């Protein structure tokens, strides 16, 4: 063992044996995003020129509010995984890479919490 190089030790063991779960969730969120995109575009068309009360009533209705929460969570989950992939592909400096990965998580969580908070506030607020 003493004379074996690190590379020699890992040769033949295959890949990391993890990571397919990320790939799989990326596909699931992709599929889920397709109907959600139609919903988002449709809702935007409905809300063109709508005044404040109409927008509020629409967003807080029983079917729309949960669907919007889904849009926020699924889109953000999907884009977080996607951005992580972009970062590890192009950013080779460890410092910048870790900073970017941390920013990615904070950006996603911040947007997600803000979005869900807004939808709930519209739904429950008076």
């Amino acid at each position, binding site marked *: 063992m003493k004379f074996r190089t690190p590379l020699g030790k890992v040769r033949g063991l295959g890949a990391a044996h993890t990571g397919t779960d990320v790939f799989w969730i990326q596909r699931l969120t992709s599929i889920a995003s397709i109907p959600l995109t139609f919903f988002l575009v449709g809702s935007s068309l409905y809300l063109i020129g709508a005044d404040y009360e109409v927008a509020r009533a629409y*967003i807080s209705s029983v079917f729309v509010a949960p669907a919007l929460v889904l849009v926020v969570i699924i*889109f953000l989950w999907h884009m977080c995984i996607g951005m992580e992939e972009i970062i590890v592909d192009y950013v080779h400096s460890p410092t910048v890479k870790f900073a970017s990965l941390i920013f990615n998580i904070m950006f996603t969580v911040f947007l997600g919490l803000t979005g869900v908070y*807004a939808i709930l506030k*519209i739904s429950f607020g008076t």
Partner: protein
Amino acid sequence: MTGTKPPTGRPLSPHLGIYRLTFTFLMSGFHRVTGAVLYFGMLIPIAWLLAVATGPEWFDFVNSWLGTFLGRLVLFGYSWGLIHHMLGGFRHLIWDTGRGLDLVSIEIFARATIVGSVSLTVAVWLAVYALGGF
């Protein structure tokens, strides 16, 4: 650890500079670019929702920004990016089933993606202006 360093200079993925620029290459890159643009673009719907949650003044304020020429341009770009990325992603999902990986299909897919995304986006914006009010 013997201190032996692994050989350096191994290729890192992806190395963009070594390929001939083809249309399919361009569409592949565009999928990634639209994904990254949509990433930051998510600020817009979230900001809009927050404005609705905050009150009529904020609602009017954000809407008036979105209604400017620049705002419309950004929204147009956002909708095109979203639709293009959706169609491009759909293409990826077909590939994931093992179908459509031959050279003829990928060329057709690439063309269908861009033609489809431009037509759908134009259709959406025709609907926007047909519905008036914006």
